[in-house]
């Protein structure tokens, strides 16, 4: 059973996604729309970390590993198949499986939180190094070269299922990306309402108590981590559709940014990380086009400002403020 509040939140999110999908392609220029698709794909990545960290207590410092794996698998598979239809399930399955395997090693190995951060960061950096070193003709998977530092520039955009001749235009890809983000949000909300989701939150609250109540903490964490891998992989597929895949997807700078999006937007919420991501990406990209200030410098400054001014994150702070105002309104 979905409660009224959850139902309302899902309804609003889906409505917003549909509105954005209908309205934005009409009013935004192509370049801006492609940029918006990039932000939305990153929003999916932010949501994936927001879910596993905010509600499962799993601080994954290398969520980009699954983002990049999703993107690379999509690119390589769609080039090889000459069709993106089967590339998508493959590009969702691989990051999910890798997340499950990595989760198995970490959680069944009883790795503590700090080391988990180190291991996940190292994983994405290893993939970054590896992807960087795949320049030259000898690095090919089937007919797709991996391209080293340059990545795979010829990543095919989505086509109509089983019709490789009909590729989707950037505005159509934007629509799909926004709807994917809306659906991921709805799915995450629903997951948190299930027994699995509630046990995950309980594990975040107190692992020992959850275990003493008979819940297999390691299995739960592994499953949630795999869900996060799936979502990040989806973000990677969408990203590959509007930019192209390159080792940057695995990079330290991306890995760090995801953490910042979640913290600025509000950990312990689902919409917060998405809002944080889109806001920060818009600001830093805008700063980049002005060429007045280094975007990374701006990102760092924004992060420090947010930590000091809104330590709980933008969304929880705004919600608290609204609640206070409403209470004051009721009293007067």
């Amino acid at each position, binding site marked *: 059973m979905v409660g009224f509040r959850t139902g309302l939140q899902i309804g609003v999110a889906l409505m917003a996604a549909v509105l954005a999908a209908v309205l934005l392609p009409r009013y935004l220029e192509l370049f801006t729309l492609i940029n918006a698709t990039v932000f939305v794909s990153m929003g999916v990545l932010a949501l994936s970390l927001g879910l596993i960290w905010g509600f499962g207590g799993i601080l994954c410092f290398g969520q980009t590993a699954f983002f990049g794996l999703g993107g690379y698998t999509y690119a390589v598979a769609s080039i090889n198949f000459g069709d993106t239809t089967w590339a998508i399930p493959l590009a969702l399955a691989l990051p999910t499986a890798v997340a499950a395997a990595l989760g198995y090693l970490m959680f069944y190995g009883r790795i503590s939180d700090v080391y988990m951060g180190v291991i996940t960061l190292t994983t994405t950096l290893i993939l970054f190094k590896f992807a960087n070193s795949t320049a030259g003709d000898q690095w090919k998977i089937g007919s797709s070269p991996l391209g080293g530092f340059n990545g795979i520039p010829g990543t095919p955009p989505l086509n109509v299922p089983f019709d490789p001749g009909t590729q989707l235009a950037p505005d159509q890809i934007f629509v799909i990306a926004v709807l994917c983000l809306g659906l991921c949000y709805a799915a995450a909300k629903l997951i948190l309402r299930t027994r699995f989701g509630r046990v995950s939150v309980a594990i975040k609250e107190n692992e020992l*108590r959850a275990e*003493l*109540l*008979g819940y297999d*903490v390691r299995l739960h964490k592994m499953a949630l981590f795999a869900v996060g891998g799936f979502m990040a992989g989806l973000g990677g597929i969408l990203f590959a559709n509007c930019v192209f895949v390159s080792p940057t997807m695995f990079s330290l700078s991306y890995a760090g940014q995801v953490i910042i999006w979640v913290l600025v937007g509000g950990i312990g919420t689902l919409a917060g990380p998405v809002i944080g991501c889109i806001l920060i990406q818009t600001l830093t990209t805008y700063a980049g086009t002005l060429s007045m200030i280094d975007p990374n410098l701006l990102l760092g400054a924004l992060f420090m400002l947010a930590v000091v001014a809104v330590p709980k994150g933008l969304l929880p702070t705004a919600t608290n403020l609204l609640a206070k105002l409403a209470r004051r309104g009721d009293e007067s």
Partner: protein
Amino acid sequence: MTVLLSTDGLRMRFGGVVAVDGVTLAVNEGELRCLIGPNGAGKSTFFKCLTGQYKPTGGRIFWRGRDITALDPFAVARLGVGIKTQVPSLFDGLTAMEGVVLAVRRLHGEAEARRRAVRALERLEVGDLGNRRIGLLAHGQRQLVELAMVVAPEPDLIILDEPTAGMSAEETGRAADLIRELNREHAIVVVEHDMQFIRTIAHTVTVFHQGRVLMEDSAEIVFKDPRVRDVYLGKAVA
């Protein structure tokens, strides 16, 4: 009488320190057993071995005759063992009701879990705290909410590690009544060092000293034994 939980020569060594040294013990169905001993006697280590939090370095643990020595805490809990730790171990961010529902949700559907959670909270006389966030409750209330979580799934055996730690005299008195009441339906093992408290609830008492069982008998005999007094006063015991 059926033996519910038993250990055979249980041993737990941490480097050069042997915290539990060959403990053999059996708890019967419906029994109320107290494990007592001064600080450092090995009671809590023994408790953690029983509940799967420590893997013993020697000996065996049996549940209804089945070897469960290597089981993890969640698997021990699934056998029908309710476990309460010394420091209340709770979900501070959830309400008392949500916490207790989770305790039963593994076994029952949502509606039945809610019914049982309400019943457990009322049984422990904290029915009015259902909607309160656990993290905001007072220590004594937290102990009771945790006990509600332990009792709600109706385990065959409840293991309580120092249930009166941090309680006032009045709360301790209530806890004693509660344990006696719970014992009507569940076997209970109480790990405790408060002799006064044990005196009010005890049936059979096992006295731990330096990781071993010093003696095991009815409460009356144990409390009269000069060796037990000496152990508590820190005197050497032969």
